[in-house]
């Protein structure tokens, strides 16, 4: 398989062949943060969880927030890529690969935060050795594993055509090991009608599957909270609420990544304002839905005036007032205003809206997890301030930053092997410019 539009191919593969200084700088920065995280983890394993802010009551802190957040990004990536693929959106080509990568990489990073939470890591294998089907934790383990495999398959299917193109390209001199790798990964794909049909059908089926799985899996994660009787968590709308919130954050991250890699890899020609506006409008619609769910959830809790719910809401409006306002008002309204008013609708503003949405969503997760645990049914026995009120320590922040860094590292490593803009998708959307010619 060869691609006729050489300049296009050169643009997409430039970072695979050469490595810029910017790339090294960014990669080095991420590695330093990751190393700091490793140090924090070693310290935590050595000294125990006392080095974190977690105590008897608040046993889930920033780690769980990060876990939910990363899983949300992943499911959002799956939903977005699945929907874009199935509905053949004409503008999907430069965006879809980012969404697929967000899915898989977030899914690899997220579960590590669960491990950081566990005091007795040596007991982790028990979860697999003695699973109890009726435990929501078991549902989550099954769901995440299933989702991870499904997303890997979908990503791989969407990469096969690109690997085949890279394998057969004569104009770009890849290192021998890389060309060998493309040969293996391309599965001998030549673009024949039969192969194309097989691949398309598999991709369509997997796209539909990952949409369904993403919804179910993130709902399962929400049910871990929802099935408990804890104030603030015991809610029937937590499943759909989490799914919408996940798509909200994932869309925000998609916009941010589009901008970062657009700049680093000079993809301005392919990722244009039109793409930002389209994803921005998606962000706006989801922000409206997310705002509606948030309002509905808090309104019913407030109106019910159940003692514990009331205590929780009082706490949110007193101790967590600014976080609450930022997460549930500014984090929703600002993206809506920026994208909703055409005058503000430019790339820079849309990226700002995405950053605010992403930050707001992370804080929303924080105020879902922590204040509830600070409002136990039984009085807190220990009156030391750190028992009553949770405050993350530098160890937790270091590991959080390390999680973000690992996400960046994976993203950058993938960019050295596979094109971040799907060449095959570009082929189908810009058929007049690029033509694939089967060799056989």
């Amino acid at each position, binding site marked *: 398989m060869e691609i006729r539009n050489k300049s296009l191919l050169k643009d997409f593969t430039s970072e695979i062949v050469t490595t810029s200084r910017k790339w090294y700088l960014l990669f080095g920065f991420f590695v330093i943060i990751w190393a700091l995280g490793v140090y924090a983890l070693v310290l935590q394993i050595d000294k125990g969880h006392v080095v974190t802010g977690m105590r008897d009551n608040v046993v889930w802190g920033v780690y769980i927030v990060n876990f939910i957040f990363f899983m949300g990004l992943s499911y959002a990536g799956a939903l977005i890529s699945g929907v874009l693929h199935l509905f053949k959106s004409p503008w999907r080509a430069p965006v879809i690969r980012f969404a697929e990568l967000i899915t898989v990489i977030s899914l690899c990073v997220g579960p590590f935060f669960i491990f950081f939470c566990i005091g007795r890591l040596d007991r982790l294998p028990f979860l697999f050795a003695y699973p109890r089907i009726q435990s929501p934790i078991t*549902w989550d383990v099954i769901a995440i594993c299933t989702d991870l495999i499904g997303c890997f398959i979908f990503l791989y299917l969407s990469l096969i055509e690109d690997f085949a193109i890279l394998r057969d390209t004569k104009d770009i001199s890849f290192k021998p090991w890389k060309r060998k790798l493309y040969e293996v990964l391309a599965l001998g794909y030549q673009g*024949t009608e039969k192969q194309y049909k097989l691949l398309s059908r*598999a991709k369509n089926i997997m796209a539909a599957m990952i949409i369904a799985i993403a919804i179910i899996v993130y709902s399962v994660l929400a049910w871990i909270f929802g099935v408990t009787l804890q104030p603030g968590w015991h809610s029937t709308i937590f499943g759909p609420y989490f799914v919408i919130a996940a798509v909200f954050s994932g869309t925000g991250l998609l916009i941010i990544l589009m901008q970062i890699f657009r700049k680093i890899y000079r993809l301005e020609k392919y990722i244009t304002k039109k793409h930002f506006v389209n994803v921005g409008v998606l962000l706006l619609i989801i922000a409206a839905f997310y705002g509606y769910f948030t309002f509905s959830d808090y309104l019913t809790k407030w109106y019910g005036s159940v003692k514990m719910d009331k205590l929780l809401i009082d706490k949110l409006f007193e101790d967590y007032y600014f976080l609450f306002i930022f997460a549930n008002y500014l984090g929703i309204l600002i993206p809506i205003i920026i994208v909703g008013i055409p005058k503000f609708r430019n790339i820079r503003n849309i990226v700002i809206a995405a950053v605010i949405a992403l930050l707001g969503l992370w804080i929303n997760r924080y105020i879902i997890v922590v204040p509830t645990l600070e409002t136990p049914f039984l009085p807190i026995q220990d009156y030391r301030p750190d028992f009553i009120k949770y405050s993350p320590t530098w160890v937790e922040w270091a590991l959080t930053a390390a999680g973000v860094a690992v996400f960046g590292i994976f993203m950058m490593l993938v960019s050295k092997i596979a094109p971040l803009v799907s060449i095959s998708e570009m082929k189908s959307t810009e058929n007049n410019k690029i033509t694939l010619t089967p060799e056989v």
Partner: protein
Amino acid sequence: MKKLFINIITVLILFTAAALEQGHSQTGKEQEVLVPYMEFKYLKNTDNQRILEAKVSLPGDLGLEPIEGLTVKFFTNMDNPVPMGEAITDSKGIAKYIIPDDYAIPVDEEGYWWFYAESEADDKYDISMAEVTVRDVTLDMALNEGEEGKKVILKAYTIVDGEKVPVSDEDIFVYVPRMFSLLPVAEGYFIDGVAEVEFPEDVPGDDEGNITVIGRFNDHWQYGNVEQRVATKWGIPASHEVAETHRTLWTQIAPRWMIVTLTIMLAGVWGHYVFAIISMVRIKRTTKKMK
């Protein structure tokens, strides 16, 4: 132009003066003294205790709002009022005064007692007052369960000129206490001092059928509130216990529906994965065949 300017200034001055006058009249206004409302009741309870009950409240946006901490004085003898005692209103605005058993209440010419209650005025509240006139009546109640069913036998008489006079041609109600108030379950009629009331068979009691039966003149025009209470097992035993349930999550084996649902879902998902993997294998095989 000059004229217009003068007109505007004049209007502004007039407005300012009017506003200042209004503000002055508001700030200069003295604090208004509120006029409370009093409900006054006489109750003779099952122990033949005579209780005077005055409820002081203030009409507000949400109805009558009770006033706590007001002193209420109680009087008797209409011609020459005599103080009996006083009480302070509680959080429900109620001041209760129990008339001592040995207190000789003056009777008027027609054989009625006259009671009067008055709440004291202070800086915030004006006085409120109410009076009630009642005739003393003695009420007895017995419960009879025979072949004809359950019957409440009520006997009542008054004392006129030192002689017992049976109550006649008066209605009386039988109640049972429920959560918020007394529920009337039957009505009777006095003839020659006796009223026989059939008690219904379908009144729920506690888990053993215990119930309190109350025969009561309720806000009667002549007798006020007079009641007799008897505890009995005439109620239908009603179990209020919530059936004990076990969360199936704690059982050794997961519920069947859960296993079935999970199996179907996983089989569906993994089936599609297998299909996708088979497709990849077929792509590879196609190439080999071509070669």
